[in-house]
């Protein structure tokens, strides 16, 4: 108010202080050190992720061994194609099954109070901590035709261990914690008033879940599923025990790479590896894009 009453000093054009120039694509942040932080990020990503992947590409494309046509030839071999299909197909299905399973678990753990909740909560992380081989042996023991669950499966005519079903079980097992842990913090932070508002507006339990809770969870559910998928694609230890490893039937791509390495077919192994990297990267990019679009909804 007093500001208006005071005569304003006349400002000549030249006296306007020059703003420091900023790069147009860097969003201004109150935190300093963008340059340094970005530098380190790029350095680490480069040293830890990009460099090995480049080496892999170079290894696979070594012209004196295979050449581009050789790589394509190696990948279209029926055994390789079958392994890639099995790995990515089962990983995707396992990750998708982990979505409802993980949602249920996260929901139970974060919404209800019951004795032993903390123990159950800690158990979720166990697949993270277990050496994958141990998990594989344990799962095999349970699902083998003479194992406690395997015999039940066998009675209804399903071969669990040494079949794609067994691989699927192992992939669900190792993927579950990713979904649960992605969802839990979001579920805990969900505003109860929003659900109550939906309730007063006449929404029943299903409508509240579908229209209010799930949309809020969707971004983290997707990121949990994509983590589970990524982990499943690369999973080796727990799968090789339960899979039976029959070429064309229950042989996963990571195992095929190991087999090729053992046969000194380095270029062939690298070619399969490269294909896995390319498919995984494409899939994760697609998932991240969807997730980003979902997360942006409702943000300014």
């Amino acid at each position, binding site marked *: 108010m007093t500001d208006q009453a005071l005569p304003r000093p006349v400002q000549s054009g030249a006296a306007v202080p020059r703003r420091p120039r900023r790069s147009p694509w860097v969003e201004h942040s109150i935190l300093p050190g963008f340059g340094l932080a970005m530098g380190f990020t790029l350095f680490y990503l480069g040293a830890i992720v990009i460099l090995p992947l480049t080496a892999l590409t170079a290894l696979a494309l070594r012209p004196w061994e295979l050449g581009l046509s050789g790589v394509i030839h190696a990948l279209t071999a029926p055994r390789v194609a079958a392994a890639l299909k099995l790995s990515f197909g089962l990983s995707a299905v396992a990750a998708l099954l982990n979505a409802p399973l993980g949602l249920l678990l996260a929901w139970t753990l974060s919404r209800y109070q019951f004795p032993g909740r903390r123990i159950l909560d800690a158990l979720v992380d166990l697949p993270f901590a277990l050496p994958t081989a141990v998990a594989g042996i344990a799962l095999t023991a349970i699902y083998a035709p003479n194992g406690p669950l395997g015999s039940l499966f066998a009675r209804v005519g399903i071969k669990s261990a040494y079949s794609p079903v067994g691989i699927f079980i192992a992939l669900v097992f190792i993927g579950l914690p990713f979904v649960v842990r992605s969802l839990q913090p979001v579920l805990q932070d969900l*505003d109860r*008033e*929003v659900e*109550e*508002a*939906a*309730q*007063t*507006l*006449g*929404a*029943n339990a299903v*409508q509240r879940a579908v*229209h*209010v809770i799930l*949309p*809020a969870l969707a971004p983290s559910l997707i990121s949990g599923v994509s983590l589970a998928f990524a982990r499943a694609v690369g999973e080796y230890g727990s799968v090789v025990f339960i899979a039976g490893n029959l070429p064309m039937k229950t042989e996963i791509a990571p195992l095929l790479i190991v087999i090729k390495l053992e046969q000194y077919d380095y270029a062939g192994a690298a070619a399969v590896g490269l294909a896995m990297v390319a498919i995984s990267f494409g899939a994760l990019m697609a998932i991240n894009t969807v997730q980003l679009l979902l997360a942006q*909804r*409702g*943000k*300014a």
Partner: protein
Amino acid sequence: MPVNSLRTADRETPSRLSLEISGVSKTFGRFPALKNVSLQAKDKEFLALLGPSGSGKTTLLRVLAGLEEPDSGEVRFDGEDFLSLPVRRRKVGMVFQHYALFRHMTVAQNIAFGLSVRKRTERPARSEIGDRVQTLLSLVQLEDLGKRFPSQLSGGQRQRVALARALAIEPRMLLLDEPFGALDAQVRRELRRWLREVHDRAGVTTVFVTHDQEEALDLADRVGIMRDGELKQLGTPNEVYENPADPFVYDFLGAACRMPGVVAGGRLTVADWETVAEKGAPQGPVEVYFRPDEVALAPPGGAGLAAEVKAVAARGPDVRIECLVEGQVLELEAHGPTLPAGVAPGLALRIKPLRPKIYTIA
């Protein structure tokens, strides 16, 4: 003001009871949140529940919405047993303090929510929902913001969306839980007026929870003052302000000065000041309350409490006068232009409370 004229018109129309709360109690663990609360509201009445935090006003509101189940008591609405109805069948429009909007939906989708979740047989046609949303958007003065997301709105705009969303289901009763609590004073005052207008236009029984006595007195047809889970007093803003039932209500409704006194033989004595005690005043030692701006200042020879001015501070058009009375510091308030000249620190004068209220010592 059109608002005020509407209000008086409303008050004069005798109308039937719509909300009847009787003997409602609720405890959380061992903490009693509501103790045997009973009150009634007339059809289309605007009722404010006023009280400090923890007084049970929000719990009572949540009981009305069905979000909380009372341990005992009865709630009837239009004669119907409300407690046996599940939340989603009560058709109450609830507005929360922190808006509780659906963040992933646009403003229009938020408002349409209550209609679009209805059973197919009861759901209006799509175009009809669209029309209703537009009407509500213009009612809350957000015509052009239907496509925005809540995060792109200001606090005041969000609260208006929340109100439109609650009104969309054509609620039988509107419940507002400190709807302006998270907004700044300027926006609060604007929305307050506007809310009253919306209420009058929508013609729906409204229960409004607040801890701001100015808001309650300004808005409501009747105000219920709550403390520790009990309803202390219920009446029109004038009734409760002029005749607070107890010292707590007196204190809560505005600034108060308090002096010890004695009532004997129809006379009230406070220090060296004696006056007629109001009829029905308690006998013996009492507490005398008066508003800091309801006093007459007189020269030392006049009637009233002997006082010495300690400090005078202007605060906009009002002047705060700090006085020493009987060893006790009282803060009085006067309107600047009507203040006698010469009131300055060190001056001896007499203070005569114009409308003292007498309460027994608790």
